[in-house]
């Protein structure tokens, strides 16, 4: 096996990446009330506690509402942006696409505070809806990035061939382009959903009195008593994230296979 030293380093690095996450299930099933070694015994009490918590259920419902809405909106807007940027030349393309992609490099604190100031200024009450506005904004660049990859791997003459064979621009898009970028659309939705579900800062500032999962977790971190339940919640969330990402990866690969390209790998 080549690169023995490098391989050992890479595996150690993966362990460093996963170490904190691996602790989650360890303490989620530990019957001790404080998060420390040695472990006490096995319990599912924290999961039961989590299940019976009404605020948590409300937070979960809010988070799912926000994540689904943001994923749909961000992906729809992303479709427009990706289609325009891969297929058309138009004046001001650089600055326009730059503004759409800007949230990728802007600290979320700036995005959320400035949005908060404007929303309060024009008198829109903070709610789940305002969080959706913010999350759509920050998920959009990720959707654009994924969809741009999907669109740009398409041969432009496919669309022309469909028109040449008698389809209009619109039906050519529906019959040829849409099926081919569908895996990208699903990927973008799942990615946006995951980002929104995990996002804390914007939800913290824009949700008003409505809890979301991350803001609820944040509020509970101060109470040592709640920590084991948060560990259980974290375990569930991580498992969900991994599941979603695996599904997203599956669709991405299927898209790659379907268009017969070489797999270059990776999400970003």
């Amino acid at each position, binding site marked *: 096996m080549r690169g023995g030293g490098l391989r050992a380093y890479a595996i150690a690095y993966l362990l460093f990446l996963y170490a904190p996450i691996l*602790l989650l299930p360890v303490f989620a099933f530990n019957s001790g009330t404080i998060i420390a*070694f040695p472990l006490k015994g096995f319990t599912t009490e924290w999961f039961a506690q989590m299940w019976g918590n009404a605020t948590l259920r409300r937070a979960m419902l809010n988070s799912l509402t926000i994540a689904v809405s943001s994923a749909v909106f961000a992906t729809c807007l992303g479709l427009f942006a990706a289609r325009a940027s891969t297929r058309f030349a138009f004046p001001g393309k650089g600055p326009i696409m730059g503004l759409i992609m800007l949230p990728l490099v802007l*600290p979320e604190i700036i995005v959320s505070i400035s949005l908060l*100031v404007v929303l309060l200024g024009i008198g829109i009450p903070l709610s789940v809806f305002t969080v959706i506005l913010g999350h759509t904004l920050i998920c959009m660049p990720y959707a654009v990035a994924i969809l741009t990859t999907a669109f740009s791997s398409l041969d432009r003459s496919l669309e022309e061939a469909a028109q040449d064979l008698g389809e209009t621009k619109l039906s050519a898009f529906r019959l040829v382009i849409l099926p081919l970028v569908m895996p990208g659309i699903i990927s973008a939705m799942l990615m946006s959903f995951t980002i929104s579900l*995990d996002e804390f800062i914007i939800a913290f500032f824009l949700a008003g009195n409505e809890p979301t999962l991350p803001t609820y977790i944040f509020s509970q971190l101060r109470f040592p008593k709640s920590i084991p339940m948060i560990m259980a919640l974290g375990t569930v969330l991580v498992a969900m994230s991994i599941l979603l990402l695996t599904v997203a990866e599956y669709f991405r690969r299927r898209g790659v296979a379907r268009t017969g390209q070489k797999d270059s790998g990776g999400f970003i």
Partner: protein
Amino acid sequence: MASASGSESAQGLRIVAPPFIYALLMLAVPLLTIVAFSFFKDGYQTIIREFTFENYRAVWADPIFRTLMLRSLLVAGMVTVVTVALAFPVAYFLSFVVRPDHKSLWLFLITIPFWTSYLIRVFLWKVILGHNGVINSGLKSLGLIDQPLTFLLYNTGSIITTLAHAYAPFAILPIYVALEKIDRSLLEAGRDLGESRLMTFWRVTLPLAMPGVLAAVLIVFIPTIGDYVTPTIIGGGKIPMVANLIQAQMLDIDNKPLGSAIAVTAMLIVTVLALVFLFLNRRFLRMR
């Protein structure tokens, strides 16, 4: 007859309009509002729309701002150096050692932790490093220490560890992409022209990978400067950074003009630093 290029640009603009208008309303307008606020006067609980540089004067004269800004820059700089230095060998391994059909699996494994709750990952470092945390309780139960190690948590070191962990995939991916683009025959040419493996790396691979390294540096540095969660949770409120200051001024103290001036100043400093950084490394960006 309308020229094709004219109708094409009109069509492009029509299609890009929905996301562009959304970004204008939700991002450009709020950012401009913040910039405008930073030039207004603060009347208690209201804003007096009167042009002034007073906020900026106050920001630059404020020793707290200077301390926190310097700390943010220092922490972000350290995090960047540590993250990129640790990430480079992994990216190199991925690009040059891993078999092509295993690459996407490795990339998948590396990106997964990044997509799992940031808040919980940060908190887990507190669990690991804390007074009664995994390291201390582990060491104690092994009988290696009597008293918990107090230097682990609530300092810049623990903030740097946490952030370096959180931003690891951000550093690996751009470097990996840059390494993947290198034509392998260039490396053979380097060896063929009489250089050792190490010198070929130094004279061929590294310069060609620099665009990826530069991207990694900016991708890690810019968001870590504005990080809010880590100083709050890991620093325990004792080691605030500039994001905490902005939040406090805007909401807790409710001096929006001053808070806006801090935010704008911080953004300007970061932008200038990023541009200077790119300018200093411009020779690496001209290559392709």
